[in-house]
């Protein structure tokens, strides 16, 4: 179904459920929203600081093997990309997407803030303001383009049972743990709660409550249907795969979602890294590949970007693991992306090339990547508003085509 037909279909079928004239306000809004072709940006956070050097492997650099005698990915196992860099073998599911030029890698990228605290670094990356703790909202909330007229209640969605910092902010954002359970399971009580939270003088609970019930009503039309991923896509079992599947569902249902956030934890590999990393990356890459396959032509409007709070020490530690480091990698996926390429300057692994003599140095600021996606893909006019105080002095990475 072409995008145009899809939109018409949504509008007419949704209206048919209620009958002309009795369609509630939100549905008129949703139909309105559906009239426009929505661009979607999906952000994935690998919490715990993934060991980038063992994911995007600089197998062409002997120093890499010298620094990591026990945990380096052997040359023979690396999925080679360009003679210098290769993928961890668990990223096999992403190779075809890379080859189709819909997946780009940015290496030696991250936050310029020197902190090695998970808490601070995640906070800075989610707020989009390294070093600045007073920022109240997340970069994805600020990235939502201005809309005149009715807006969808689910413009910003965070997967899981807490609302991620990245999407928090003045524009209503919702947390969805599981689409099927996103409702009060009793219509009469649901209406009572709705009116209670709609009118309560408690400003905070009023805000969350209103957002909740607007979203509940909008998602009702899809939440009770059985979902079969398209194109034979198979999401792995587990929380992250489920998150990706639900994001895909919401994109296809055209409910007006513009930004989505999901996370996957467990990357803090201080001890015995190899098996943990292999397992996590398998789950990670299978989920992303299934998402790409499931969405098919919808990927024309979708860009997905991954990040992690910082990288890990270039040298392995005493426990076949790695400690907290500095720069890392980011992945960007989607049809609008000029993929099949490793972006970013390689800083090298010589002792004096390393950050503080121990970690991969930073050559690209994560905000360079994100501001390009925000302006060129989402169509947000003012990158300065999304990343206050940040001036991108370098020329564009040219990640987004057109």
């Amino acid at each position: 179904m072409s995008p145009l037909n899809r939109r018409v279909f949504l509008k007419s079928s949704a209206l048919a459920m209620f009958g002309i004239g009795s369609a509630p306000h939100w549905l008129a809004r949703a139909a309105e929203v559906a009239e426009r072709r929505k661009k979607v940006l999906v952000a994935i956070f690998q919490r715990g600081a993934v060991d980038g050097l063992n994911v995007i492997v600089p197998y062409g650099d002997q120093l890499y093997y010298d620094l990591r005698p026990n945990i380096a990915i052997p040359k023979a196992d690396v999925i080679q990309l360009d003679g210098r860099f290769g993928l961890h073998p668990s990223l096999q599911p992403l190779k075809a997407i890379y080859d189709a030029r819909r997946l780009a890698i940015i290496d030696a990228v991250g936050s310029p803030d020197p902190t090695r605290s998970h808490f601070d670094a995640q906070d800075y990356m989610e707020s989009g303001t390294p070093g600045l703790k007073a920022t109240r909202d997340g970069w994805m909330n600020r990235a939502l383009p201005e809309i005149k007229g009715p807006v969808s209640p689910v413009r910003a969605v965070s997967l899981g049972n807490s609302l991620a910092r990245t999407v928090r902010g003045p524009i209503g954002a919702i947390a969805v743990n599981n689409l099927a359970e996103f409702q009060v399971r009793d219509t009469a009580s649901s209406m009572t709660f709705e009116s209670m939270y709609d009118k309560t003088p408690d400003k905070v609970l009023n805000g969350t409550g209103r957002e909740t019930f607007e979203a509940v009503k909008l998602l009702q039309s899809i939440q009770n249907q059985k979902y079969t991923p398209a194109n034979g896509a198979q999401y792995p079992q587990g929380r992250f795969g489920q998150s990706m599947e639900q994001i895909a569902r919401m994109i296809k249902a055209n409910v007006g979602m513009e930004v989505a956030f999901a996370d996957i934890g467990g990357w803090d590999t201080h001890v015995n890294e190899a098996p943990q990393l292999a397992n996590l990356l398998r789950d990670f890459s299978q989920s992303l590949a299934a998402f790409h396959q499931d969405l098919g032509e919808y990927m024309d409007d979708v860009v997905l970007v991954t990040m992690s709070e910082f990288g890990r020490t270039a040298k392995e530690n005493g426990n076949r693991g790695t400690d907290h480091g500095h720069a890392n990698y980011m992945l960007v996926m989607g049809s609008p992306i000029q993929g099949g390429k490793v972006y970013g300057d390689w800083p090298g692994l010589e002792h004096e090339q390393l950050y503080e003599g121990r970690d991969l140095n930073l050559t690209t600021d994560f905000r360079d990547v994100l501001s390009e996606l925000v302006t060129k893909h989402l169509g947000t006019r003012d990158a300065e508003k999304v990343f206050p105080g940040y001036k991108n002095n370098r020329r564009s990475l040219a990640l987004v085509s057109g």
Partner: protein
Amino acid sequence: MKSRTITAVAVSAAILLVPVISASADLFHKKLPKNEEIVHALNRLTFGPRPGNVEQVKKIGLKKWIDLQLHPDNIAENPELLAKLKPLDSLTMQQAVLEERYPSPQMIQAVAAGRTPMPTDPSDRLLYERLAQRYKSRLEKKGLDASKLAEPDRAKLTDILTGDQIRIAEKGTADERAALLKSLPNDKIEQLVYALPGGGRKLFADASPEIRRKILQTTAPQQVVARDLWEGKLYRAVYSNRQLAEELTDFWFNHFNIYLDKGADRYLTTAYERDAIRPNVLGKFSAMLKATAQSPAMLFYLDNWQSVSPHAFTGNRRGGPNAPKRQRGLNENYARELLELHTLGVDGGYTQQDVIEVARCFTGWTIKDPYRGASFEFNPRMHDPGGKTVLGVKIPAGGGVDDGLKVLDIVTHHPATAHHISFELAQRFVADNPPPALVDAMAKTFQRTGGDLREVMKTMLTSREFWSQGAYRAKVKSPLEMVASALRATGADMTVAFGIANKIGDMGEPLYRKVEPTGYSNAGAEWLNSAALLERMNFALALTRNNLPGVKVDQQTLDGTPDALARAFLYTAVSPQTRQAIAANNERASVAGLILGSPEFQRR
């Protein structure tokens, strides 16, 4: 190496992170009306008022009641709680006994393979033999049709039950099955558990908590340990008379957070909470800090047990099968979190070099036999004997185990620690953005008393800010607080707490399962989102309709007008808006659930 310097002024900036969900500053100067003081105290210092609590406090006197809560040893414990805790025997076991009585799958495999001897205790031995037997037969059946594995072992079944009984067990109604179970002696039930696939989950679905516990112990003993922790925590929150101690235990466990599902911590968390946290929540901060630093649970969680001096002898180290291999370097994990989370706070003025120096001090602080009895041990061969400088203080070479103790002493007396701890307590007990003057007063007490936590609490509880309108109902309940307060308000009888613990997880607070060392935020914003809010509403309805397994609410207590029920649950009138919404709902049975799910009940 470039070092990182963090200025201490940013503490107030960190506060701005929290969206304003409490009152404006001048409300902290306005006194709370006298008649609201008791409800306020019950909301803050307990998991919510139970029917009759307000009158009890009135009778004792508010001041006296608070003083009692600050001295929990002087409060007689609720016999109802003690009865509920009694079957949860893993909570009181010594480490080695716990590991033996509730063996892990790895342990059973080791016994089955003959690598580890059978336990000597006869009843443990019987358990191991059966589990090993089951493990072996599963191994043998591997490769067979999976559906065959689900078939009960008929030969064994006929040894235990008569033909009629087998028919009931397999095809009878729930009532018939329950009657059958009641009629069987204990040893038969135990045999049945082994004879039926999956421990006979279907037959035992309606069995008593004792029998279900037995089933779990004989099929997946390791899970009993986690389950006892969850259930124990919930029973205490709902039934304990020492409510403040329970609130504080929750607070301090979260402050020194560890993660239940990380390897050996599956067995170490029980003792950690019981021996390192609980006895110290109203004692000296330094005692709790040292107890956590030397607890196998923390040493394991933050990897310090494997941190070794880079200069340590790298040949054949300590013997024993459980000795960690491949130890060759420093691990900074504990050192960093000690400074950032446990003591100074993220803006406490330490550098990356301090983190490294602290890590060097703690080399050699390790665990003796992490999977067998696990106890703290200092291993001099792993230790870095050189001199160190921590936060400007020189620690001379050759200090051994004292290096780590010296670090704990330095950070305990550092002003940033007094401030950080006071801020966190005030955020938990007063308001998301606690007034700086209050935090300063508490920090002063902390420093003056050498970190006496009871005195710090007293400063808070006698402050003008605590008894102000700015603090009144300013906090959004955490999921645990919401659930426990609902159970307390309705006088619910909880016989199985496991399902309730899962609900709390669905609301965003899996108990003992916060992966990150940060723990959960003490601010209400952490809990406010749509998915969690819907869970709260669904929980409130399910509780009052008796739709939650293991929990019963006497429906008569839920009878009443919306106003009467609101007074009973909230000790205050609901807003006209809430009253109106409830009045429009004509399904009477829901009223109690609607109040527990209302905006008003989400605050404390």
